[in-house]
């Protein structure tokens, strides 16, 4: 019994030490990482500036709007200790602080329920049977909506005059003040119930066992599969937990695609991808992430400013849901 306890203690110590080693190794990385994402014909260059306690991710170039590279894509600043994410919006010189998602339990939605067993052959969804007559080219008039407009012109972006520097009074979150005198406390109104999440396929990060070396880092290959798509990821545990570039406050409703979920799966395992490719099952690539250079370097005091909102930006409240 005592020996068993000793063995358990040794095992726990070894696991803890291993975890600490990984964590220390991950936290130890400091420097800059240049990466490129490609979606179809759109290419965006990302710069990761990694500090001891903070991580900054920004889009430094894009071919989607060369006249105003990066605009209005936000800058992401992650507090690596608390998990708080700050988004800097250059279009209106504002920033929002997002608390870590309630330990989001899991980024994966509940699985799609399987069909009940024992259904008659014609009951329930049918797989594609062979031998059906050939489909005529073109959309039959009775399929799909018939009163939809044609290709819409994208609306003009609203012209946003630059706000004045400095935080004017009354702008941004206001201090909580007690109720005005004489105002009775209002009864708590019932909150809007959140809809149950839709039935979506569970997305998992699975190790394939394949290993390689990319840019001097030992990488392991992982896969994520969702209906009709597969994402292959070469990731390392020798850098830092990944932070996917976030363009906006994360949306709460509706389903999410793989490229909106893969970052969280890697972060949970403290992995950083050196290369990732998302392909349709028909073979064509629809998303690619590739690190082009990793530059370990000690950041200067000036660099520390990169991890704080500029002084002429003002804070806004996060979205309510």
């Amino acid at each position: 019994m005592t020996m068993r306890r000793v063995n358990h203690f040794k095992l726990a110590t070894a696991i803890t030490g291993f975890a600490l080693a990984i964590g220390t190794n991950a936290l130890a990385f400091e420097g800059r990482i240049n990466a490129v994402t490609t979606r179809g014909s759109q290419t965006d260059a990302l710069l990761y500036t990694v500090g001891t306690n903070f991580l900054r991710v920004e889009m430094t170039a894009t071919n989607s709007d060369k006249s105003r590279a990066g605009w209005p894509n936000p800058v992401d600043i992650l507090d690596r200790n608390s998990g708080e994410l700050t988004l800097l919006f250059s279009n209106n010189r504002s920033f929002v602080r997002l608390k870590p998602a309630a330990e989001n339990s899991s980024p994966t939605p509940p699985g799609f329920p399987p069909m009940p067993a024992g259904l008659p052959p014609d009951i329930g969804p049918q797989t594609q049977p062979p031998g059906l007559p050939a489909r005529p080219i073109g959309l039959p008039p009775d399929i799909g909506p018939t009163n939809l407009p044609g290709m819409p012109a994208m609306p003009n972006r609203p012209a946003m005059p630059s706000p004045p520097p400095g935080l004017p009074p009354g702008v941004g979150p206001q201090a909580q003040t007690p109720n005005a005198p004489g105002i009775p406390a209002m009864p708590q109104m019932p909150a809007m119930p959140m809809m149950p999440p839709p039935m979506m396929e569970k997305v998992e990060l699975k190790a394939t066992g394949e290993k390689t070396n990319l840019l001097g880092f030992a990488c392991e290959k992982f896969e994520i599969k969702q209906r009709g798509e597969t994402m292959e990821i070469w990731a390392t545990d020798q850098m830092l937990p990944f932070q996917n570039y976030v363009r906006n406050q994360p949306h709460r409703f509706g389903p999410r695609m793989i490229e909106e979920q893969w970052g969280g799966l890697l972060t949970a395992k403290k992995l950083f991808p050196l290369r990732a490719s998302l392909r349709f099952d028909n073979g064509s690539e629809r998303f690619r992430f590739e690190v082009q250079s990793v530059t370990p370097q000690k950041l200067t005091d000036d660099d520390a400013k990169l991890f704080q909102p500029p002084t002429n930006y003002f804070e806004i409240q996060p979205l309510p849901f």
Partner: protein
Amino acid sequence: MKSERLLFISFALALFPLLNSQLSTAFAQGSLTPPGPPAPTMLTLSQIEPRTPISSVPYTITNSGSYYLASNLNLTVNTNAITIVTNEVTLDLNGFTISTSVFRGGGDGILLNGGNTDITIFNGHITGGNFQYLGSGITYNGASPVTVHVFNVTVTECIANGIYLGTNSSTLVEACALQGINVYGIEAGIIMHSQAQSGNTAIIANYTASDCVGTSVSGEGVLVNGTANNCYGSSYSSIGLNANNANNCYGTSTTADGLNVTTALNCYGYSNSGLAGLYAATANNCFGYNTSPSGYGLYAENVAISCYGNDTASGAVGLYANIANSCDGTSTTYNYHYNMPP
């Protein structure tokens, strides 16, 4: 016959002074001394206009009641124009405008200060001028207000939010139009017949948004926790329209899903990103359009019925659905299907 009629008229005229005492000289005259001071015979000013005029700003409403703007009011000191610190207030902007000329001021147009209840604001304009000197058009401080109704108000050029009432189910914004809002456009429990153009999310409704248009740069055009009906949302760097349910809606985006909802009915989504024109868990009679070579026209996570997905770019998928029924697309991928070509 004629002589009889003349005789009758003469007799009647002769009797008239006797029957009418005022014309008669047969009775004595009354006293010339008035019985007392004349009593008021007209309505008082407070009876005619039982509301309190607001003739200058800044102004603080501390008592319940009905108020109205007496003229256009321009803020010249750096504070909020009208602050409401009590309940049961009706504020009629009376067709006038609240504006500011405070250089880089930032005060709010109308501030509900501290968990107010039973507030109605309507019929006028709030503007920050050409340089967004106003903070928010209508906003609150402290506890969220409840039972608030704002209607027929325009808000323009604010450095912060347009009409920002929190998300309580009893906050209702109706028939309002907003332009040049720097951060959030309209936030309320229910939003109807309104339009907002803003830097971040334009229309934020916790329950329903109906007949609304939201255009945003870096946030969703329309964001609804409940149901969006007959809405249009457009965004540059986020989802055009994001809701749990969408009926007869239209969403467009440059870099994200045009329309992303749990259930979509009679909707249209357009995107030129690598994501989807229309992305839903369940889509019924919808159309998704994408111009990206790496995206989906319409992506139905679970079921698509009578839908069409269009993405003609090489390698892209027009329509994807786990279960597709009577659907089509420029190219289609599905796991199960009914009434579909092979």
